[in-house]
């Protein structure tokens, strides 16, 4: 399961997508919208994606997680559009035979997703919004 979508993320479906009788360890990451960034209150976020490339890049990441980081089954879903505080922006689940590989692959996936997958986040405060990538 690899998706970039505007619909809410179904976490149960993400976890079920990696179920398998040989995989004893499932590690998942959920990224939720926080109510603040630094000292500032966040009112909501907008996520913009280069959708078709984002899904292709996610597929490349998943292939790499399988080939080089010990992931056996992987699901990644990223949401786009307007998200409110508490909404899930990204969900990753990795299943492996044993837990070290599952932890390492899940961590690698979210770190690399945030470097490589063309999805941008605009944070909105009471006094306006800014693209997070605008700030050094």
């Amino acid at each position, binding site marked *: 399961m690899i998706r970039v979508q505007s619909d809410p993320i179904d976490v149960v479906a993400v976890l079920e997508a990696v179920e398998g009788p040989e995989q004893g360890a499932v590690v998942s990451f959920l990224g939720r919208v926080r109510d603040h960034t630094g000292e500032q209150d966040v009112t909501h976020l907008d996520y913009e994606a*280069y959708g078709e*490339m984002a899904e292709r890049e996610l597929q490349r990441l998943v292939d790499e997680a399988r080939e080089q980081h010990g992931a056996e089954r992987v699901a990644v879903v990223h949401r786009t559009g307007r998200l409110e505080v508490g909404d899930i922006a990204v969900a990753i689940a990795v299943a492996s035979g044993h837990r070290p590989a599952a932890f390492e692959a899940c961590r690698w996936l979210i770190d690399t997703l*945030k470097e490589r997958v*063309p999805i*941008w986040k605009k944070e909105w405060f009471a006094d306006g919004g800014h693209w997070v990538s605008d700030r050094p």
Partner: protein
Amino acid sequence: MRVLLFAGLAEAVGHREVDFDFGSAVGGDVAGEATVDELVARLREVFPALAGHVFRVAVDQRYVRGDEPVTADAEVALIPPVSGGRS
């Protein structure tokens, strides 16, 4: 050539997509000749609002290096830094 812009770049330039005549811009048939760096240099001339912005380039939905070729029928995207690593 379709050139796609996103996020802060789209807002700076005022377009999300431009139809860019790269062939005539470099003076003729560019197939297999022009590089990504050359395209970017030309885009920065035509769109001065790109000044001060950093971005990577994707051709046909894959990141490319500056020395790779780009053809006139490509889908080019300027990719500003993505959403970052803090959450």
